[in-house]
């Protein structure tokens, strides 16, 4: 008897929310109108303060470097002398005379190879260290020591090993960005709930299935934290490495500009590097947020 009563109320409960659904659709429209105003307000509140700060900084810089014996060029001089670099990022007048966007892309290509390798090897090693207590005991001290070596300290050794500048630069990126990936992946794997392991044991998943279906998704938030730190480090390393190895990357452009005393060019290049690094960081963060959207919720 009582069960029937419960079911009746359940059945009745269903049509009732169906009607207000139309009303909700209507309010959603109203909300959207509100939203456009809210978005504009939000944009203004995020864009105006940094714009003001940049203008103030430019003014201070202009005043500070305006005296005839100033050692650095003021913004107006940067604008005048490096106008072609700012306005035409994609020009191409021959092998060493190309726009800054091309140089950034060439550097990014090296980062993509070096960081890509670091991501693959780092996740694999991190999984090993996180999974096996003996791998951790053996490898962790080695990692802890090697990760403190500054990126450029690897460069002479890799130049000697590869006898070529391009793979050496890529190796420097690899060795710089792999440590945070390894360490974060290992922490993520160690934190996989025992229940998930039990599920995989009952299903008799093999090592590969466990890695793909349980370990990587479960550790994904940690892995992406490592990747985000790693990509930041590799962008730091590539500019420094290219200054020493030459080629056509953005790092070498700065060194070249310094040797020919083109200070405005250096300043423009710094802006390019900063913006690119920011975009890389946000890109990895966005990919991470997309991939891990289900994993952190309980």
């Amino acid at each position, binding site marked *: 008897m*009582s069960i029937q009563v419960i079911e009746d109320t359940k059945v009745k409960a269903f049509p009732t929310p169906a009607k207000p659904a139309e009303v909700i659709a209507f309010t959603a429209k109203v909300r959207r109108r509100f939203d456009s105003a809210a978005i504009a307000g939000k944009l203004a509140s995020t864009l105006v303060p940094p714009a003001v700060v940049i203008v103030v900084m430019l003014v201070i810089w202009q005043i500070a470097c305006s005296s005839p014996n100033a050692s650095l060029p003021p913004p107006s001089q940067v604008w005048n002398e490096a106008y072609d670099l700012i306005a035409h990022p994609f020009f191409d007048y021959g092998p060493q005379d190309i726009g800054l966007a091309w140089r950034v892309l060439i550097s990014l290509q090296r980062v993509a190879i070096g960081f890509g390798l670091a991501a693959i090897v780092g996740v694999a090693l991190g999984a090993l260290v996180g999974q096996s207590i003996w791998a951790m005991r053996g490898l962790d001290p080695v990692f802890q020591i090697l990760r403190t070596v500054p990126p450029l300290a690897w460069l002479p050794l890799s130049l000697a090993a590869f006898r070529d500048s391009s793979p050496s630069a890529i190796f420097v990126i690899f060795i710089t960005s792999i440590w945070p990936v390894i360490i974060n992946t290992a922490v993520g794997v160690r934190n996989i709930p025992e229940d998930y392991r039990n*599920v995989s*044991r*009952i*299903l*008799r998943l093999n090592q590969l299935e466990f890695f793909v*279906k349980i370990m990587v*998704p479960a550790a994904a938030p940690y892995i992406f934290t490592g990747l985000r730190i790693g990509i930041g480090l590799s962008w730091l390393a590539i500019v420094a490495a290219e200054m020493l190895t030459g080629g056509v990357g953005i790092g070498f452009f700065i060194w070249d500009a310094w040797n020919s005393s083109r200070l405005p060019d250096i300043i423009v290049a710094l802006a390019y590097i900063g913006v690119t690094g920011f975009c890389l960081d946000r890109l990895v963060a966005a990919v991470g947020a997309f991939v891990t959207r289900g994993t952190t919720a309980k």
Partner: protein
Amino acid sequence: MTAYLKLDHIDKSFARGGQVSEVLKDIRLTIDKGEFVSIIGHSGCGKSTLLNLIAGLTKVTSGAVLLEDKEVDSPGPERAVVFQNHSLLPWLTVYENINLAVSKVFGRTRSRAERHDWIMRNLDLVQMAHARDKRPAEISGGMKQRVGIARALAMEPKILLLDEPFGALDALTRAHLQDAVMDIHSRLGSTTIMITHDVDEAVLLSDRIVMMTNGPAATIGEVLPVPLARPRHRVELSSDRTFLRCREAVLKFLYERHRFVEAAE
């Protein structure tokens, strides 16, 4: 006739840093096919350890778990476990969670379409087909546990192991799920072992109630048959004399003869 599941003189002790603590001692129990057995006892008496031993998630120290006269010492899908906290993988949808189990267990023997039908049949069985594309975070605790039961049933286990499956749920949701489990048990006739600390739940669902003494070195204190006809209805049973007598027997065992000593924790 030999027993379907036999727990043969099982001892279990954990060694930690030279100190050996005895958790279970001389567990002897036989369970027939299709039987619903509850294991009840105070917390810390090792009833979850016992379930893990049957599941193969932990190994026995001595003795053996025999399923159809074959010793089992590692986990497998023929002894599916429904975990207390559901253990659904949060990055998979309800459907994908069950598919993970079904494609592993039946990936070679059944076609894609057959596996799909099987998943949907199990979701229907727990009335969760409507939420097939939701992620665990988007459904309630009771619904998660239903999906956990569906995942276990989808493995077509010889024995269904329930580890305090309703412990984390509120009383009303718990009652609904108990009815669902009774319904499934009557339809499929699945051999089921349930860990619980709820006396009413044990009496309502079980054919036999296994009562554990307190640890350390806990063992089976008493086995109480529940001679109630099925199907059982909780409202009618609430004044049934057999039901009340069984309930009283369990309560007496737990609170008079084997009172929980807090200091032993």
